[in-house]
């Protein structure tokens, strides 16, 4: 047996960099369709339901945009941290805290009206996500604790906090004992952007955040300092950049973006605080961030793709009888396939001399 060897390229390959997400999608799609066939689900039907049907009607296309909004917001925030090697894995918890804090206004002031309500809710969401992420930042900077573990534990706690509120003090008294809050009043809901759909102004916010992220990463000195602080702490210290502030900034940006996304979800399509406000957006956004190459523009496309998989997965569940967990399998294998494909950006396979057929 002769194995090819993996060697470093002299220069990173741009074509591979651009092709990697598409190759990854193809690899993940093929392997998952094979998996579906093993449990007797028709792969062709799943393929059609998942990747074609979502684009065949205006409404289902708008649903993709609706799902893409929170993914885009969270992923832009996370990617800034990931570039600086700060691994905030707890966006799910920051999202939930954002949703909880935003909901406080309509829950305690159900009669209030005025144009100030939904913007204030979004602000509360940002602050909630920020505060939750600040715990992780404090633990990491002051106590030297691993941010992956702390942020993730905080996500589990956030979910319990949500359960507590919905089963206790915030439960809708008229809600037939369902674990959900009151339905929010009209002024607590985000204005609709595309008539006839559920797409609201949060999509514009997500795009604005994208532009801001692009400027921050590509054009600002603060962004540069952050990246150096994470990548080369010693060099950064020598240059007078602090690693602690890189960690604080990364986590606070990530928390604020996730909190905003959580607020936009309760004030948007959901319209109340529920147990199921987050269908794993915080985890899916990690995949979005990597799949987009941690680049603000790449992330836009990646968010759109993952949103398509969510909508397509729902379709396939109804029309092809696919278990909904299949979407998670697909997401995980997509990330793995992307990591595999992007190996070849900086490396190539070389066959030992004379062994090539």
């Amino acid at each position, binding site marked *: 047996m002769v194995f090819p060897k993996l060697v470093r390229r002299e220069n990173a390959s741009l074509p591979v960099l651009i092709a990697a997400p598409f190759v990854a999608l193809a690899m993940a799609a093929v392997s998952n369709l094979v998996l579906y066939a093993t449990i007797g689900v028709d792969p062709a039907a799943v393929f059609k339901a998942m990747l074609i049907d979502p684009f065949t009607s205006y409404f289902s296309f708008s649903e993709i945009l609706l799902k893409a909004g929170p993914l885009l917001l969270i992923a832009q925030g996370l990617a800034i941290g990931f570039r600086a090697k700060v691994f905030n894995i707890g966006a799910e918890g920051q999202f939930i805290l954002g949703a909880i804090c935003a909901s406080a206004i309509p829950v305690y002031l159900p009669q209030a009206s005025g144009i100030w309500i939904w913007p204030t809710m979004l602000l509360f969401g940002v602050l909630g996500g920020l505060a939750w992420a600040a715990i992780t930042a404090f633990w990491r900077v002051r106590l030297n604790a691993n941010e992956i573990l702390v942020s993730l534990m905080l996500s589990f706690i956030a979910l319990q906090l949500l359960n507590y509120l919905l089963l206790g003090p915030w439960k809708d008294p008229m809600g037939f004992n369902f674990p959900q809050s009151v339905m929010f009043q009209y002024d607590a809901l985000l204005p609709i952007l595309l008539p006839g759909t559920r797409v609201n102004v949060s999509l514009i916010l997500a795009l604005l955040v994208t532009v801001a992220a692009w400027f921050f990463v590509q054009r600002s000195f603060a962004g540069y300092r952050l990246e150096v602080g994470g990548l080369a702490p010693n060099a950064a210290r020598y240059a007078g950049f602090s690693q602690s502030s890189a960690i604080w900034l990364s986590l606070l940006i990530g928390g604020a973006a996730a909190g905003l996304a959580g607020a936009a979800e309760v004030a948007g399509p959901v319209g109340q605080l529920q147990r199921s406000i987050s269908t794993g957006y915080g985890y899916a956004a990690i995949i979005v961030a990597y799949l987009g190459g941690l680049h603000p523009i790449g992330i836009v496309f990646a968010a759109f793709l993952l949103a398509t998989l969510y909508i397509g997965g729902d379709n396939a569940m109804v029309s092809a009888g696919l278990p909904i*967990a299949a979407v998670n399998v697909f997401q995980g294998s997509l990330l793995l396939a992307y990591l595999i494909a992007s190996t070849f950006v900086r490396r190539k396979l070389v066959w030992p001399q004379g062994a090539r057929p």
Partner: protein
Amino acid sequence: MIAIEFILAGMLAAATPFLLAALGELVAERSGVLNLGVEGMMALGASVGFITVYSGGGHVMGFVFGALSGMALALVFAFVTLGLHTNQVASGLAIGIMGLGLSAYFGKPFESFTVTGLGKIAIPGLSDFPVIGGLFRQDIVVWLSLIFTPALWYVLKHTKLGLLLRAVGENPHAASAIGYPVILIRLSAVAFGGLMAGIAGAYASTIYTPLWADGMIAGRGWIAVALVVFGTWMVGRVFLGACLFGAVSLGGIAAQTVGLAVPSQLLASMPYIVTIVVLGIISSNRRLVKLNGIASLGEPFEK
């Protein structure tokens, strides 16, 4: 008093999933590989183990298939991180998400089904003591874990294999220079980690709480990863940490038996809160972490 008796009796069984998964991760990390997919490997082991037992395969086969499924995921992780030099953090997360998804995917038709657990084996005499007697009535897997833990400690501390593992984790280039197969050793260590996570999952779903429910691992795999840090990569301390978490996860039920009026969600959060607090205390002792930490942890090895 009843609460203490209750915790003493159940602590070891509750600790076992944490312990087995953490010991597997400890071996992987000692070789210099950080596998964050433990939660997913445990979930898959739990799902596959449960399906095997439910389908009449018996507990032994449940453990075998659970272990193999955890190891299969670990081998995928090893292939991409060791063979293709992908980022270990991102790859571990991908494996974790896949494992959780696969466990739910395969487990879907078995949701909320139950199987029969295993009976307890009591040590005659000791198990008749008041209060502490329950400590000496455990199922076979707990007893085996109690034998396995010191055995692993011995292997890591006093055998050539343990020395090799440590050498590869501390300085892979030096180990490679004197002729040790770094990649092969890391591959074996990661595979062992997956095997243990699979066994831990199968124990959780077929003996500890003999039922399948999507999401039943509920962060225990992540706590196992944290336990390795708590234990500063030492077997004995990881064991103590696992016992602490076993006790904490029973604390909720114990608190209710003594009539403490605390919201159940707070009690359910206790393992996570304790993880955060202990992680802060241990990690803030930078000298301790630096002294016992693995020098090459998370870094890819290339000749």
